[in-house]
């Protein structure tokens, strides 16, 4: 007579069936997990890259604001902020572009942070009292500058011309 406990229950415990079931279940589990996590990781990668670009853009925007305020501290002001950001986001290079609304020089502008390899672009509006000029810098170390050009003051991401 069979006992009631699991120790005495030997149904389905043949070697062939056990191996087949184990391998099948393991294979299904692993392949499902790999497929699901692969997609999840890709999405996570994009989110992280976008978040990182947003952080960098926000910080550059804040430095533009600081440089703008320094313009009120004197005449013929030249101020340069040396920044050190990561050269890559999610392992890919990126570009920061400042495009004034009104062509090449305006107090309203849009800043784009593009990671082309990831097909990700982050745009943010920037506003200042001092006109910004069009500038483009490739990753890493934009030099946020307030430059005196004759009677004009300009904000740029590429440093003041010497």
């Amino acid at each position: 007579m069979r006992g009631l406990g699991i120790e005495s229950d030997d149904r389905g415990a043949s070697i062939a069936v056990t191996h087949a079931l184990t391998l099948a279940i393991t294979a299904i589990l692993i392949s499902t997990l790999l497929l699901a996590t692969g997609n999840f990781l890709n999405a996570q990668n994009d989110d992280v890259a976008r978040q990182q670009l947003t952080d960098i853009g926000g910080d550059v925007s804040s430095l533009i604001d600081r440089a703008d305020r320094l313009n009120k501290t004197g005449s013929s002001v030249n101020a340069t902020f040396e920044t050190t950001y990561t050269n890559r986001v999610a392992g890919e290079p990126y570009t920061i572009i400042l495009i004034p609304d009104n062509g090449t020089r305006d107090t309203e502008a849009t800043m784009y942070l593009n990671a082309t390899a990831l097909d990700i672009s982050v745009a943010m509006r920037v506003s200042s009292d001092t006109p910004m000029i069009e500038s483009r810098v490739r990753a890493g170390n934009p030099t946020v500058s307030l430059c005196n050009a004759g009677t004009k003051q300009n904000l740029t991401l590429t440093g003041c011309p010497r």
Partner: protein
Amino acid sequence: MVKPDRAQLLLIASVLIALTIVASVVLLNAVYTPQTLRTGTVNTEATELRDTQHELRNELREYLNRVGIQEASANKPDPLPYAPDGVSVAADMRNISALYGNLVSARSGATLRIVKTGETVGDVVFQNKSTRTLTDGSGNSSWQVFSGVSSMPRVRLNLSDISGNNTSVVINGTTTSEQWTLNISEDAVAVNGRDQCGIATGDTVEAVRVDLVDGQGTPVVELDGQSGQEYCTNLTMAAGVTAPYNVSIDGGDSATGRYVMTADGSALTTTPTGDGPYSRTDKTINLDFRLVYVTTDITYASQFSLYSEDQR
């Protein structure tokens, strides 16, 4: 013979493998986090730069005030600060710059260099007796203090009493429509188009202080032990008026107290008397500086004037 618990062990093992994969995915996700941005330093240094410049400007102004007081003290018992002689200032400016540069360097590691690059020579008019009305040397209560002023760095009124409604400092521009007026009144009657400083009807003005530095200022009214509504507003001197302009006092016999005004390149219209107002010509009324401030992340250079209408 087949052991009955072998199948369960294999299943448990496969579940453990699956959990390991899930755990590794979670850990891998943790690796993909944004790097911490090293921006705190730049922001801190930028704030420190602004603070330093503000502090330095106040320090230099304070120095000029002290020198002005000393110079005035030699002649008058109740002096007001006014711009000192430019020649005596130059050497002290160099010392202040050197000392302040060392102070900033020791405090924050920044390199600061400040050089006096120029000065504005002009005229000073002041009346330093608190019991005297704001009349000119001949007893006129409405009179022109300066004419043809191209910039006016400073006006200071320290009035001990107001007895009427129409004591005003008037600044006229090049066209007749350009006029800015600071009206100081005991009873704040509506005066269209004028900056006002006064109190409600029935209250008595104890004192009025107006110090228009950098073209801007906040008047302060003290009441004679009574509560009353103040009508003083933040002032922007000569708002809407373009230089050159003339500076006048109207109805000065309604106000009692001290004042000082400085202006560049002006034609004085006062006649000094024994009681004032007094005038000084060819005095240094403003100084220009070049400031360079360098840290590891910030390079800053600018020109600024100690007193300027646009606060630069």
